C-alpha cells in the first residue's frame, strides 16, 4: 500500500544517513518526525523549550545510531519513539535508564528485505487499528503512553475505578491485536 511505501521510504532514508551521512535524507526524516517527537514530549510534560531541545537531541541520536537500526525489528516510527522515550527518562524524569542486553548478532549482515516490508506493514496496520479504536479507549492508551497521568490519576479524573481503567486499556489492546490478525 501507499502507507507501507512511505514507511519503506523512511527505512531507505535511515540507510542513506547510515551509509552516506546523507543530509538531504536526514532533513526529510527531520521534517516529518521532529514535530511529532516534540508533540509527544510536550504531552509527556515537557515545556516547549525543553521539548525543543530534547527533540533536537533525539534527532541527533537518530543520526548517531543509524547503524543500529534494524527494519526487521522495528519500524522507523517505533525506533524514533524509543529514542524519544529514552530521552524523556534521561531529561524529564532525570533517572538512570536500565536497558536490556542486545541480542547477539546473527550471521546475516543485512536484514532480509521481505521481513522488513512485513514488519512495516504490520506496524502500519497497528497504526490504523489504533485510529479506529473507540475514542474513549484510544484516549486511555494515549494517556498511559504520555504518562501525563498514572492509572490511578486517570481513575480519579474519570471517576472510573482502577480495575475498570486497567481492563479498558486491556480491552483496547486486545482489540488492537485482533484488528491486526
Amino acid at each position, binding site marked *: 500500500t501507499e502507507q507501507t511505501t512511505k514507511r519503506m521510504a523512511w527505512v531507505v532514508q535511515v540507510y542513506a544517513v547510515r551509509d552516506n551521512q546523507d*543530509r538531504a535524507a*536526514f*532533513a526529510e526524516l*527531520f*521534517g516529518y518526525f*521532529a*514535530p*511529532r*517527537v*516534540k*508533540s*509527544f514530549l510536550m*504531552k509527556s510534560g515537557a515545556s*516547549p523549550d525543553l521539548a*525543543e531541545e530534547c527533540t*533536537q537531541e533525539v534527532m*541527533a*541520536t537518530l*543520526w*548517531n*545510531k543509524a547503524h543500529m537500526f534494524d527494519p526487521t*525489528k*522495528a*519500524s522507523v*516510527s*517505533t525506533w*524514533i*519513539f*524509543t529514542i*524519544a*522515550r*529514552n530521552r*524523556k*527518562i534521561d531529561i524529564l*524524569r532525570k*533517572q*538512570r*535508564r*536500565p*536497558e*536490556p*542486553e*542486545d*541480542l*547477539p548478532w546473527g550471521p546475516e549482515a543485512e536484514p532480509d528485505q521481505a521481513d522488513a516490508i512485513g514488519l512495516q506493514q*504490520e*506496524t502500519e496496520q*497497528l*497504526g490504523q487499528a*489504533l*485510529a479506529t479504536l473507540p475514542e474513549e479507549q484510544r484516549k486511555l492508551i*494515549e494517556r*498511559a*503512553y*504520555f*504518562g501525563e497521568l498514572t*492509572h490511578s490519576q486517570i481513575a480519579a479524573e474519570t471517576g472510573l475505578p482502577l480495575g475498570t481503567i486497567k481492563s479498558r*486499556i486491556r480491552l483496547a*489492546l486486545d482489540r*488492537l491485536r485482533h484488528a491486526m490478525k
Partner: protein
Amino acid sequence: MMNDMTKIKHHLTEPLLMGYAAGTLPEAFNLVVATHISMCDDCRAALAEYEAVGGEVMMDTAPVDVAEDALAATLALIDSGKFADKPAPRRTKDSVFPGPLQDYVTGDIDSLKWRKVGGGVSQLVLKTSKDASVRLLRIPAGTAVPDHGHRGTELTLVLQGAFTDEEDRFGAGDVEVANEDLNHTPVAEEGMDCICLAATDAPLRFNGLVPRIAQRFIGI
C-alpha cells in the same frame, strides 16, 4: 543466553511491559524489567509490540512546530560530536548478573557487600530514584523469607537457584508479581543459594512481631 538452560514460566505482566515501553515506571521497576528481558525472548518480543503501539501513538499526535533553525541546530549538534548515546549493556561472561544489573553492582555474588537482614537472609540495596526501591536478596538454600504481605507492588526476579511460595515454584528467570492481595512465605530450594532481584514501590508488611521490629532497621 539463559533461555537455552532454563524454561521461564512466570513472565512480566502487561502493565509492566506497557509501562516500560512508555517510560513511565520507577527506575527500580525498569531495572527488573530490563533484567528479565535480558533473560527472556518472549517478553522481549512482547515489549517490541508495546513499543510499536507507542510509536503509533506518537505518530498520531498533532505535530508541533519546531524552531525555525531546528534542523541547522541539530546538524550542528551532530557535527560537534559531543552527543553520543551509551551502548546497550553487556553481561560479563559467566556472571549471574545480566547486563543491565551490572551497571548497578560491581563484582560477583561473593565479592558484594551483603548485609544480613535476619534468618540467614542477606540483601544489597541498589541505588535508584526514590519512587521505588530495589535490592538483591540472597536466601540460603532451604531458608524461608519471613511471611509478609505487600502495600504496593513487589516484583521478585530469580537470578540463581529457585524459591517456592504459596503461589508456585519460581526458578531462574521467573518473575513473581505480588500485589496487596498476596501474603506469602518464599522458601529457597535446597541445593543452591537463591539470588533474587526484588523491587517494591511500597514497604512490605511483615506479619510476625519480630520481623516488624526488624523492618525499621532493614528498611523494607
